[in-house]
Structure formats: structure tokens, C-alpha cells
């Protein structure tokens, strides 16, 4: 951490990494750290974090959801802001923790305060930090999927498009229905795999119709679902988290693809 005596430190941001980014795609976490630091934030990653509790909450297991929520609240209450590279996890903390813990005499007030300062990464950059442009380059067309929780719980829609428009060389080609669910739904994809598949089948057909070689979104769960389907169907569309492109960190292999393929455009 920088010495507070020598320079005015930016806001202290606690990064909620999310379980999927932690386990499956750490590069998204590092991209988030870079974007936040570029915006002037001091980023810390509390060690006492695992998951936001959605799998329990959405399975009806309220007592485990409450226990996990308390743990997150404890780990993050000291920060100025809490930021997650996921609309779904940020939405869980921001909109659902107050109803999970609101009546809890010990945690109610703390939970509301953590909820109120929790944001999805890209909307935090634009709406709170006032970021208007990024310095990344990416030569090619992308299409953007609006993940449901980010879109409908947190109003994330124009923010990623605004920042993507400032990436040198990048154009956004919209699919026809970017706001339609990809069929992931967390445990839904495991409980009802056939229905989930029918939904993602339609989704990847729409993605392909955008004729962009790269799919972006702000949630790794949705991306894993769509990338897994795109690969199974042999479609020539890769998938990445939007933070990777905004941070200019696209030298890792895209989601569900092997051998690091470097984006030739990124090297000029």
C-alpha cells in the first residue's frame, strides 16, 4: 500500500473475486485489479472470502446463505467500496443481503452498509470512479451479452458498451437479443440440464448471427455456459470476460479454449 503521507491514496476497494474467477479464470481477477488501480483505487483482496452464497440462497438453503453472507459482510465492511467482476455476485450482495440479514440484530446495519457500497466492476469504474476511457487496444469485432442479474438488478447496460467504444481498434456488433438469458441460472443448469441446453442453443445461434469472432460479458457463469456450448457446436466464436479486453489483458487463451492463442491485433 502506498504511504498516505507522501500521496493522497484513492478509495480503498475490497475486491470480491467471486468463486468462479478464483477457481476457473484468475486472469479476470487480475484484469479487475489492473482496471481498478488504473482508476486510482487501492485494491485489497481479503483472504476470508469464498463465495457470495448464491448456490445456497437459490436452492432454498437459507441458513447456509445467511452464514456465508455474514462472513462476506465481516470480510468487507472495512472498505470504502466492494467490487466484483460479476453482476450476479454484486447483485447478490447489493440487493439480496439486506433482505437476508436485514432483521439480524447483529448484522442488519452492517449488511445494509456493505450492500450499499457494493458494485459490479464495470459500472463501478464508470458510475463511481468516473472512468470515461481505457487505454487498451483490441483489433476486431466483439458482441456483448447482457447478463441477467447485472442488467435487471443493477442496471448494467450502457456502461460496458461505453468503455468498449474507447478500446482502440474494437467495434461492437450487437446480437439481436442481447438481453435474453443464456440459460445458465447457476444450479438451474445442473438441475434442469436439458431445458438449460435448449435455452443456450438459441443463445449461441443469436451470438453467431452477430458475426463477431469474440463474445464478451460481465459474468463468468454465463460465459462458461455460452463458451462451452459454442465450443461443443464448433462455432468460430471465442469468449472472454469484458474486463480482460478493457484491461488489455488478452494474451491468455479464451474461455474453454486451449493453447494460449495471442490476439494478433493486440500486438499491433
Amino acid at each position, binding site marked *: 500500500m502506498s504511504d498516505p503521507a507522501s500521496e493522497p491514496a484513492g478509495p480503498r476497494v475490497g475486491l470480491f473475486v467471486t468463486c468462479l474467477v478464483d477457481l476457473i*479464470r484468475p486472469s479476470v481477477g487480475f484484469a479487475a485489479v489492473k482496471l481498478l488501480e488504473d482508476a486510482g483505487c487501492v485494491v485489497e483482496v481479503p483472504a476470508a472470502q469464498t463465495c457470495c452464497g448464491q448456490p445456497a440462497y437459490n436452492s432454498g438453503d437459507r441458513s447456509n446463505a445467511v452464514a456465508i453472507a455474514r462472513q462476506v459482510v465481516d470480510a468487507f465492511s472495512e472498505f470504502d467500496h466492494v467490487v466484483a467482476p460479476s453482476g450476479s455476485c454484486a447483485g447478490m450482495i447489493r440487493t439480496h443481503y439486506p433482505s437476508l440479514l436485514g432483521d439480524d440484530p447483529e448484522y442488519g446495519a452492517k449488511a445494509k452498509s456493505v450492500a450499499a457500497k457494493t458494485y459490479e466492476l464495470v459500472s463501478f469504474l464508470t458510475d463511481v470512479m468516473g472512468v470515461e476511457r481505457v487505454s487498451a487496444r483490441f483489433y476486431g469485432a466483439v458482441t456483448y451479452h447482457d447478463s441477467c442479474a447485472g442488467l435487471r438488478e443493477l442496471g448494467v447496460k450502457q456502461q460496458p458498451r461505453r468503455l468498449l467504444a474507447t478500446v482502440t481498434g474494437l467495434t461492437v456488433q450487437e446480437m439481436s437479443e442481447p438481453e435474453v438469458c443464456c440459460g445458465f441460472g*447457476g444450479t438451474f443448469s445442473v438441475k*434442469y440440464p*436439458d*431445458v438449460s441446453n435448449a435455452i443456450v442453443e438459441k443463445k449461441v445461434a443469436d451470438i453467431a448471427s452477430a458475426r463477431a469472432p469474440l463474445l464478451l460479458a460481465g459474468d463468468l457463469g454465463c460465459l462458461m455456459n455460452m463458451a462451452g456450448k459454442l465450443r461443443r457446436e464448433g462455432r468460430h466464436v471465442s469468449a472472454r470476460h469484458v474486463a480482460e479486453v478493457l484491461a488489455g489483458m488478452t494474451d491468455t487463451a479464451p474461455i*474453454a479454449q486451449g493453447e494460449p492463442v495471442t490476439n494478433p491485433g493486440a500486438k499491433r
Partner: protein
Amino acid sequence: MQSTAHAFKGNAARALEDRQLQEALANVPKGFVGKRAEARARLPEFDALRDQARDLKNHVLANLDLYLEEYERKVFEVGGKVHWAASAGDAREIVLSICREAGAKTVVKGKSMITEEIGLNDHLEGAGIEPIETDLGEYLIQIRGEAPSHIIAPAVHLTKEQVEADFRRLHRDLPEDRRLEEVDELVAEARSVLRDKFLAADVGITGANMLIAETGSSVIVTNEGNGDLSQTLAKVHIVVASLEKVVPTLEDACTILRILARSATGQECSTYTTFSTGPRRAGDPDGPEAYHVVLLDNGRSELLGTDFREVLRCIRCGACMNHCPVYQAVGGHAYGWVYPGPIGSVLTPSLIGVEEAGPLPNASTFCGRCEAVCPMRIPLPGLMRKWRELEFEKVPPPFAQRFALKSWAWFARHPRLYQFASGLVIPVVARMAGKKGAFNKLPFGNGWTRHRDFPAPQGRTFHQQWRNQKRRRARS
């Protein structure tokens, strides 16, 4: 109606394999979704009206006894009669006894979900009275012996070709070489067949989109005009409605009408919006001689004191199912009872029990589009989650599922052990994937990998890498 809601999974699997159904379902997003969006865009105060309608209905539900008694008094004043039915069985018996008193042989029906809920047609048939559905969609499913698959478009699961085949099979007295390819031709044929039925019927039964306490009126909203014929031509008109349909005033009814058709079909208002107030008065050119209202509770009053009371604001527009990715994929019959889609996933367990209907509130991705379009702002995903919580308490999930959830939750509650274990396992899994970057088969993830690849982890976890970085930074 016998529920198969418990078998949603199997129902859904069959629906996904049914090519004709899939062809028919493709029309749902094309038609309803686009038209609603256009209608909404044309009315700047649409969302403000939704707030107003929500508050109005909340007020009614908080004072339901008051408005129902006022409504009953008014109906009586204009010469009609209100019958209170606590259960579906009570409602069936009341309708049957009114039909018997009228000496009815045939009954014409306007479209009504409540009569589906109480299983009225089977009951009347069993008593030797022939019910004839006059809404085109309802007529189609009646001749096929099916249940509605949508609350405003009951035959949305059928293709034109299926309807043509049914008409040729059933309407044998019509010329064989007639044209029946276009929708207009099918509608015209149904109309001509039904015309005589209207004239011959002894009793007309309709539902009600609203009941107005101030005037004692019932309101129906239709596009075919069949409801109007059903309720004006026969000697006796029976309205079957559930008790949450009451609104205080005509003005209030108009507030709801402004969002109803727009949310349902994208029309400003439906072709016919008809207010019925009592039987024919002296000097009226037409109308029934007797006017009965059967007010059905069937478990609704028990919802009033619970979190689920919000579902009683529903005005049955169908917007939630039109916008639901699950409904669009499997159609309405998979839900296994009267009300499909997100509203059904909340209402069905409320009315027939979560033990039977448990799979329904689970069959949602929680994408939230239903709540986003609901004109009455019913928090459908939140209510489905409430059902999941109640189900989790009442009906413990199968062992494997419970075990998986419990062990995951235990680790999630112990961050140090979680990170230690994931730090051991994840790099191994990443190595197993090798250079492929994904798995096309997983030992415990068959549901996922049957249809799509599973992205492999990149290598070490974020927390491992972050700790190492911090250590390196500290050393340098």
C-alpha cells in the same frame, strides 16, 4: 385437473423432443414480446401506471372483505346473485345446480381460466350437460381433449396444420375440398360451426377480468366477441371468478385495463371490453334473464396473510410466460397444471401444495425478465425463491444433491480450508485438461457435458497467485 407438476422434468424432456410443439413455440417471442415492447414505448406513463395498479391492488387485498361485500350488495341491487364458493368442488356444484334449474342441455362458454382451475367441463359433462367452448383457442383444445398451454392463448402450442387436420376430422358435414390453409379460413369455419351453438345454448358461462364493487359489474376482455355472445344470448349468464378480481371503482378498472392489453398482446385495448351489470332490465334490447356470479376462493384467502399475497395482484396477462426462456423452451403443458410459466410456478404450489408442485419454482434461471415485464410488479423470482425455501424445509432434496450442497456450503464457510483444498485440486484439474482448455466429459457433471464442454481452470487459483505476488512484492 389432475396435476403432473411433480413430473416437470419428464414433461419438459418430452416437450423438447416434440418438433411440432417447438415449431409452434417459436411464434411466442416473435409475436407477443415485440408487440408488448412497441405498446409500452408508445405510452410514456406505462411504468407509472404499473405503480398505480400495484398500489391499487395492494389496497384492495388489504381491504378485500370490505370490497367483496360492497360488490355483493351492488350485484344484488341490480338483480343478480352472488354465490360464495370456498372450494373448487363447491363452485362446480353451484354452477351445476344453476344449470339444472335452467333445464340446460348445452352451455356456451367464454374463455375462463377459473373454470379450468375448477375442472368445470368434465363435471358438467358427467351430469349430462354439454359445455361448448367458444373462444377459438379453447374450442381447439376442447375438441382435442387438451388443457390450455397459455393463459391468454390456450392453443399456442398448436400449428396451423394441426388445426386444419382436426377440423377436417371433426367437421364432416362441410365440403371436403374447402380451403383451410390460412388462419382467416380456420377462424371463419370455427365461427360458422359455433354460431348455431350460441343460439341453442340455455346457459352462458364466462370468467371475469375484473369485478367492480362500485357498480356490481363484471368485465371481460376479448378479441373474438365470443364472450359477448356467450353472456348476452343465453337465458342465464353465470360469471365464475376468483375473489381477488374485485376492484373498487370503474375508474380503477380503467387503470388496470390500460396496462392489461398492452402487456398481453400489445394492443392499446382489446377488440371487445364488455361490462355486464345484472340481468336484462325492462327496455334492454338483449341480455340474460338471470345473472349469477360464483365467487371462488379455493385457497386464495389463506395467501392473504403470507408473503405470497403479492401473487393475488395478477391480472392474467401472460406477459411473464411470453418473456420466460423456460416457457419459451418447453411450453405450458410441461408445467403440469392450469397456470404455466412464472406465474404458475408461484401460484400452483400455493393452490395445490409445494409437495406436488415443487419442481415448478425450481424451474427458473431467475433471469428476472418476468418481474421486469409484470404490469402488476409481482416479484416472481423472489416468490419462487420463497417456495424453494419452504420446499427445502418440507421436502428435503435427494441425498446426492443434499450432500453436494452441504459439503460445498461447509467449505464455503471455512475460507482457509476452502482455499487450501481448492489450491490443491484446481491445478490438478487444470493439468488433466491438458492443452484442450475444456472437458467434454466430467465424472459428476454429465448434465452439463452432455450438451456442452466445461471450461477448464487456467491453473493455480486467483488466491494462490495473489498470495505469491504479495510475498514477492514484500520481498523486493
